[in-house]
Structures are given as structure tokens and as C-alpha cells.
């Protein structure tokens, strides 16, 4: 059975060009980039090349790129650095819809005596910029707002939010893990101080991330014990993965127009196809400001895990904000923050595409998905008026 992979917000396939670029660094080119000899030095130059590729994707300078192990490390590094360099400031502003990498860290800091403002969102998951501006105070160490939401795909007005922070003298961090490579961004005009990204969301492997740190921003490292990354992250560089991420960044820059011209069109086709075919289905999130690849749809009267397992049997990979998939008993914090009624939230399914998604795959899903909902609704007690094919089979 063919796999139709529509879970690219969870992770992406590693681009074949990326694998190819990495391979020599697992075998012949195993030198340490810090070594004095030519053998290691050539690896050092390759790492510098990858840094330039990454900087080019972001419109940043190479020295503003810090390679980390993952998006979570980047988030922690940025926020903890802001606290360490401003010990008198004990307040953080963030949102209720952040990824756990930021949320759980903030909750941890809260228990350590920091005050956290968690900004709420409206029913479409939108932030109120005025509320955000009012939350920034003299003792606010950092504001951290995600560039785009992983569950519903909302893209937040980072330009505006970062400008407000800058006016008020507050450091600004954005978790751009879901946005980099899907939305063009340019650090020369986007006034963020820190930006986190993760390799495996843009067709590089798992285990590599980046923290962009604007030049001139005061910084304290998370890891000490070596001069690597100009003393900002100790530890021998993960060379093959850095090379891979550099190649992934170059591919992303080359393909970023396709995100709007190809991916977004397929996503819309999928979304319209499903919502038109299935009654009582609604799209979650802000369709006016959304990632090109993400669709979150809530199906009333059915439960998300059951949908996912049925789709799995058809080779379709998706994800859900339902409680049952995670082992918790409540729907996702994002859907709850948006006030999506529980009656819908339990039946929410996230479909996330990539530039590798094909029209044939989308048409297959449009064809196979609606009967899954129909079948589950036929055995659900909440659709008695439909009658239908309910009965033993």
C-alpha cells in the first residue's frame, strides 16, 4: 500500500539532495572542524558554507546563525539567555498557543519565581496586538510568540509584534519552527532578536536546529565547555547534520515560491474537497493568515483517534488534536485556547502537506476520507436522525 504522508508538521522526509550532501561526512570527511590540520580544516570550511546557506534563507549574516540540536534547544537557549543577561527583569510575555517547547519552559520558570503573561487568542486563534502591547512592561525580559502554529497553521503578525517589542525595549523571540522554508522571511527587515528553527521540519534530518541571534544581542550560552559556535554553544559540531541542514536551507530558498503556487493550492483543494463532501465539518484556525501547507478540520460526532486509525489503514498519515491520541483526556491546548467546542475538538484532524505532496495523493484522500467519517458516524449515537447504514456488518 502506498503511503500518503500528510503529517509534515510532525516531521518531513529528508530531501534526497540532503542525504547525498551529508554522506561524505559520515565516511571520508570525518575530521573535526576545529583541528589545525588540512584534513579537519576542510570540514570547517564546509560547516562555514552550510552556515552561509542557512543565513541566506533567513536574510541573516552567517555569524548570526547558531547551530543547535533541535528547535526545543533553540527556544530554551533564547529565553534563558534573555533572563541571564537581564537578571533584574522577571517577566515574560508569551501566548497560550505556543509549542510545549516554550510553554513548558515558561511554566517551569513560573515555579522558579518568574511572572509569565500567557496571551489568549480568539476563536480563530488570533492574538490581539493591543493586548500584547499592553502586556509588555519595564520588567519584561523577553516576549516569545510563535511565527506559525503547528496545530492549526495560524501565522502571527511577527513584524508588527517584534516592532512593538523593539519600541518598548523588550527582547523578542519567535519560534519559527513551522514557518521557516514555508514563508519568506528576511532578518534585515524583520526586527526579531532571536528566531528558532528545526531541521526536520524543512527536509533535513532530526537532531539539528538553529537559533538566529541578531548581531549585538547580549547572549549567555546554555552549554559551556568549548569554543565552538564562537563560544555560544560548546560541543563538537554535528557536522553531517549541519551540512544537511545547509543543503535543506538552500533547497527551501529555491522552492519557497512553490509553497504558495503548489502546496497552498493542493491544501485548498484538499480542504474544500473534504468540507464539501462531509457535513458538519469546519476548518479550525485563521484562514486569512495561515501556513500554506496546513489544514485543521473538525468533524462533529466522531473522535479523532478513530479517524486516524481508519486513515492509517488507507495509508494516509495525519494527526489529531483529539484527547485520545495523546493519552490525555482533554483536547489539545491550542484548540482549547481557541475555545473550539469540545464537541468539535475531539474530532479534529490535522493534515499538513509538503512540496513533495502530489495532486494524485490529494485526490486519493478526497476520495477515501469522507467514507471514513461516514462509517464512524454510522455507529455514533449522536447522529440518530441520519439513520443510514447503521447495523451489524
Amino acid at each position, binding site marked *: 500500500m502506498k503511503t500518503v504522508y500528510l503529517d509534515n508538521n510532525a516531521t518531513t522526509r529528508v530531501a534526497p539532495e540532503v542525504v547525498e550532501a551529508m554522506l561524505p561526512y559520515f565516511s571520508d570527511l570525518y575530521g573535526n572542524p576545529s583541528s589545525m590540520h588540512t584534513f579537519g580544516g576542510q570540514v570547517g570550511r564546509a560547516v562555514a558554507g552550510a552556515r552561509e546557506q542557512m543565513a541566506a534563507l533567513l536574510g541573516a549574516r552567517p555569524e548570526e546563525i547558531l547551530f543547535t540540536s533541535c528547535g526545543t534547544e533553540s527556544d530554551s537557549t533564547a529565553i534563558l539567555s534573555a533572563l541571564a543577561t537581564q537578571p533584574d527583569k522577571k517577566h515574560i510575555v508569551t501566548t497560550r498557543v505556543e509549542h510545549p517547547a516554550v510553554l513548558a519552559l515558561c511554566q517551569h520558570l513560573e515555579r522558579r519565581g518568574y511572572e509569565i503573561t500567557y496571551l489568549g487568542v480568539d476563536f480563530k486563534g488570533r492574538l490581539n496586538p493591543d493586548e500584547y502591547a499592553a502586556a509588555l512592561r519595564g520588567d519584561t525580559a523577553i516576549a516569545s510568540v510563535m511565527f506559525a502554529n503547528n496545530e492549526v497553521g495560524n501565522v502571527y503578525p511577527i513584524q508588527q509584534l517584534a516592532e512593538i517589542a523593539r519600541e518598548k525595549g523588550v527582547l523578542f523571540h519567535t519560534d519559527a519552527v513551522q514557518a521557516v522554508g514555508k514563508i519568506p522571511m528576511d532578518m534585515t527587515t524583520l526586527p526579531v532578536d532571536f528566531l528558532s528553527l528545526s531541521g526536520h521540519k524543512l527536509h533535513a534530518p532530526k537532531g539539528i536546529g538553529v537559533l538566529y541571534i541578531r548581531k549585538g544581542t547580549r547572549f549567555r550560552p546554555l552549554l559551556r565547555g568549548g569554543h565552538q559556535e564562537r563560544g555560544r554553544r560548546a560541543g563538537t559540531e554535528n557536522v553531517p547534520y549541519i551540512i544537511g541542514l545547509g543543503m535543506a536551507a538552500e533547497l527551501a530558498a529555491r522552492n519557497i515560491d512553490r509553497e504558495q503556487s503548489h502546496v497552498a493550492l493542493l491544501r485548498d483543494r484538499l480542504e474544500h474537497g473534504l468540507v464539501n463532501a462531509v457535513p458538519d465539518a469546519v476548518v479550525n484556525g485563521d484562514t486569512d493568515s495561515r501556513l500554506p501547507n496546513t489544514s485543521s478540520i473538525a468533524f*462533529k*460526532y*466522531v*473522535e*479523532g*483517534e*478513530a479517524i486516524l*486509525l*481508519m486513515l492509517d*489503514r488507507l495509508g494516509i498519515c495525519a494527526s489529531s488534536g*483529539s*484527547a*485520545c*491520541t495523546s*493519552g*490525555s*483526556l*482533554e*483536547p489539545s491546548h491550542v484548540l482549547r485556547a481557541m475555545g473550539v*467546542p*469540545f*464537541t468539535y475538538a*475531539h474530532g479534529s484532524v490535522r493534515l499538513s502537506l509538503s512540496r513533495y505532496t502530489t495532486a494524485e495523493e490529494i485526490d486519493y484522500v478526497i476520495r477515501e476520507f469522507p467514507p471514513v467519517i461516514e462509517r464512524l458516524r*454510522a*455507529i*455514533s*449515537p*449522536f447522529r*440518530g436522525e441520519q439513520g443510514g447504514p*447503521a*447495523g*451489524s*456488518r
Partner: protein
Amino acid sequence: MWDYTDKVREHFVNPRNAGELPDANAVGEVGSLACGDALKLFLKISDDGRIEDARFQTFGCASAIASSSVLTELIKGKTVEEASRITNKDIAAELGGLPKEKMHCSVMGEEALEAALRNWRGEPAVPHAHEEGKLVCKCFGITDAQIIHAIRENNLKTVEEITHYTKAGGGCGECLDEIAEILAAESGKPRLRELKPVTPKKMTNVQRMQLVMKTIDEEIRPRLETDGGDIDLVDVNGTTVTVALRGRCAQCRSSLVTIKELVEKTLREQVDPAITVEEAQA
């Protein structure tokens, strides 16, 4: 991804007896759309009390659908008397086991069966246990009676297990302390019953004091410690015992319940029925 048995998967994909039963003479409904799972069980029971047919409608995850499906297979052809002895354990066993986080799906099956049989007997839809019980988990509407039932039925040992089986405490988490109290009170009971009564006819004040200390050390403290709490004996004045709760118990909103239900009850059983326990004023 959940580690479901092949049987769970099979019943999920090909549920038996799904759908409405038009000539049902007993219907049991549990759960709701908001809770994330719900089961409506239809039974056709003959005049001599045999379940001739059973069908279900379920809103929920794969394990909820599979639990409902095997439940109908388990009860078909059984007498009401036989069916009423089926518990969530039978449902889970029939499926070859369920992930522990999913045990509440089997409990839902048992509750729907109970509700349907009540319906057939002409009793109110809500079982006495729910009516009489005190609401503990407001998120999922679970009473102390339901929690105690699940503890006894499945020999539950931790608060986490109670959440897996009943969903209680799985929402906002505000009732977790209260669930811990119920568990402490429950887990204390059988152990106490096994112990022979040690109340001497006449005790001196010193003997009573020593026995109070011994009981606190050996009986009460270990139970509080399992919940991250502790207890200090402050004073014994005749039959009035003054204690202070420490650790997690000290912040517990239901510390009074702990003192009355656990400390006082234990001391009355082990030392002297006349004992009253008071909490030391901070």
C-alpha cells in the same frame, strides 16, 4: 501510536452489532459528546429475562468502539442475572487487554450495561451509586461512588490508575487531591479489617500515648507518604490527639478529611474508640 491488540483492531475495524435496535426494550446511555466518548447500548430482553439481541452506538476512539463491540458479544444469549455480573475486567480481558490509559473505555461498557439493565427493570437511568455519590471530578462528572467502585473492582493502587479507569482527574486536575483521599481511605480498609483489635480494656495515659505513636508511625505515616505527605504528633491529652500534617498534606484542601477519615478513624480502631483528633493550629 497505541499498542492495541489485534483483537482491539479487529473489533474496531469490523464492529459487531453496531447500530440501533428498533425493538429494544432496554437502553443504556453513558458519556457525552463533550467528554470525548459515549456509548448507547440497546438490548432486547425476553420475558424470561434472557438477552436475545444487543446492539450499540459509540462515539469514541478505537478502544471505545472495540469495547462496545465485544460487550455485545459477551452478553448476547446470557440471562440478565448472568450479564449483570460482567465487569469492565471481562471486557478488557476479552479484548486481550487494553493500554492502561484506555481502561476507561471498558468501564464505559460496564456502566452502559448497568444502565441498560436498570432501564429494563424500570429503575431510574442514573444508578444509585451516581445519585448518592458526591461529585468529585467536575470536568467529567465522576462521583466518589464511581471511583470507589473502580478501585474495588480493579484493585487500583494509584491516582493515575484511577484516572485511566474513570477519567476522574484527567481534566483540570483540581480534584486530584480528593481522589488521593478516597484512595487512601479505600486502601486502608481491608488492611485494617485483617488486623486483630488491639484495644485493651483499660489503658493508662502512657500506654495510650505509646500506642498512638506506634499507630501513627506504622499505620498512618506510610499511607500519607505514598502521596508525598507526612504527619507529626503534636500532643496527646487524654483521648484528644493533636497532629500537624506536613508535606503535600499540609497544602491539601481536604486536610480535614484526611484527619477525620484516615487519622481519627485509624486511631479509633487501633487505640481507643473515644479518640478525637484535632489539627494543630499553625
